[in-house]
């Protein structure tokens, strides 16, 4: 399909991954942290699909992505369940409210 050089996509994916990582590290809202992880996983997916572009002999990257999407959905389900449980006890979704366990 495309004739665009691959590093466009790779750079975009890296940027996405980095954005997700930054969001994960600076935000304290549990929901946003979860979404940041989704961003990171999307960055990974884009990398895989992009690399599959130059190796069309099989669909290893595509299928890897496929599975990562499934994993991400499962992870989101468990994560949101935990967030709900946390909210139910604490009345908040702020990670820095999680201070009960300290040294």
């Amino acid at each position, binding site marked *: 399909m495309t004739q665009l050089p691959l590093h466009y996509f*790779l750079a975009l994916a890296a940027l996405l*991954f980095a954005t*997700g*990582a930054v969001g*994960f590290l600076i935000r304290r809202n*549990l929901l946003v*942290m*979860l979404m940041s*992880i989704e961003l*990171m*996983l999307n*960055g*990974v997916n884009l*990398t*895989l699909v*992009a*690399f599959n572009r130059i*190796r069309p002999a099989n669909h*290893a*990257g595509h*299928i*890897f992505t496929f*599975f*990562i999407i499934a*994993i991400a959905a*499962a*992870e989101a389900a*468990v*994560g949101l*369940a*935990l*967030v709900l*449980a*946390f909210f139910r*006890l*604490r009345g908040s979704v702020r*990670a820095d409210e*999680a201070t*009960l*366990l300290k*040294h």
Partner: protein
Amino acid sequence: MTDSVFVALAPILVVAFGGLGLMLTEVLSRRPAREGNHESGPSSDLALGTFVTMATGAVVALSLWLVGPENLAGAKAALPFLVVDRFTLFFEGLLCLGAALTALMAGGYLPEHKLDRGEFYPLLTFSTVGAMVLAASGDLLSLFIGLETMSLGVYAMVGFRRGSLRSTEGAIKYFLLGSFAAALLLYGGALLYGVTGKTDLAGIAVALKTTAGADLGLVLVAMVLILAGLAFKISAVPFHMWTPDAYEGAPTPATSFMAVAVKSAAFALVLRVLIGVFGDAESMSWATGWPPVLALLAALTMTVANLIAGRQESVKRMLAYSSIAHAGYILVGVVAMIEPGNDAQASVLFYLLAYTVTTAGAFAALVLCGSRGKEAVSYEDLAGLAKRHPALALAFTLFLFSLAGAPPTAGFFGKLYIVRAGLGAGLNTLTVLLLLNSVIAAYYYLRVMVFMYMREPAPGAVVAVPMRSGYVTSALVLSAVLVLLLGLWPATSLHVALDAAMANR
């Protein structure tokens, strides 16, 4: 018969179908209305069922070991996703052992702490399946699926006490950092795929050897990401922040499972990746590869974790930090793999075995110390244990000595073996650091003994009311016997570890 792929994957299948059976049992069994009766809770049959499932899994793994995985023609069909070799079988047995001990512990703990809900056992079983897949995986894809299966189950187990803020908080922290680490690992894996065009570990290794020169930068980035992700998973300092919180918040059987099975699986992952992917001479050399990074991590992990552990006031949290420190000791063995022909990898495997039985035993003892919905967590809770329950105190002492690495216990032999590997690889400073660290560790283990033997219990302390559970007691006895057995006659298990290590090189 041996050409069927189902035979080769039998241990995983046994555990997985056992888990399904357990779920069905839980759903179909009619229980009298919840009277709070210990005998009628889900644990009453599920704990034993899980134990039997895990024991069967271990026995199947053992029989495959005896048959010899190279004789299993069917194993090829699972390649490259699942590798059936002695390394895999060793870990399958080890993980089944850890999970079996956890199941026994849960059988006593959950009813006692009014957590007796049936989901725990399927979670435990399927986490174990994930861990076994992780240990068996020869491909990045199955590796991540195994990792996530294991992790998702464990997150839920940590947050199992959903009415408790501690438990949920621990689970949240563990979940967030675990997912973050998984994302790092995945990105590293994606870059490796990009460089090599392969996702199976062997293929990546071969491709790296032949063509990687041009893309050294990418490979290095991938290596760094993967190392960081692995460090999270084995909770090496400075990636350890989640460990104490998750360990403390989780119900004790879940803590034990994390400390033994998850850690073993994480080290299986480390060995698979470091040897399988970055096992070439260049990556393994002191100057250009991962050994110095891991050596630094090991030194930091041991020292920092031990220093913090000494300051803890909660035994459970102390055990959490101590388990971080043990990860540091094991890392010394991993670094020692730079010396080919050295049985460093076998020492890591043996240490994991010794560590599994010891830690499971220590947590089982801790479970027994608590009662009536209150866990024994602080040192004070253990005061005077030796007077009230001398046998329990003796068993706890045995496990503490094993953790401290005092003879004639499993922990001692494990440490000796790692020290031998470390010195053989010329890591003199690191090895001496390990040994000095074990002195620091001895300090806080001794503290537990001081409280058990030399302090009088406060009136009304938890130990005053014993918890009685045949399940936990049998877990305790089983691990105590294994600790002594591995300490006094380790020859067989040494051979087993060696054979397992030979398979992964």
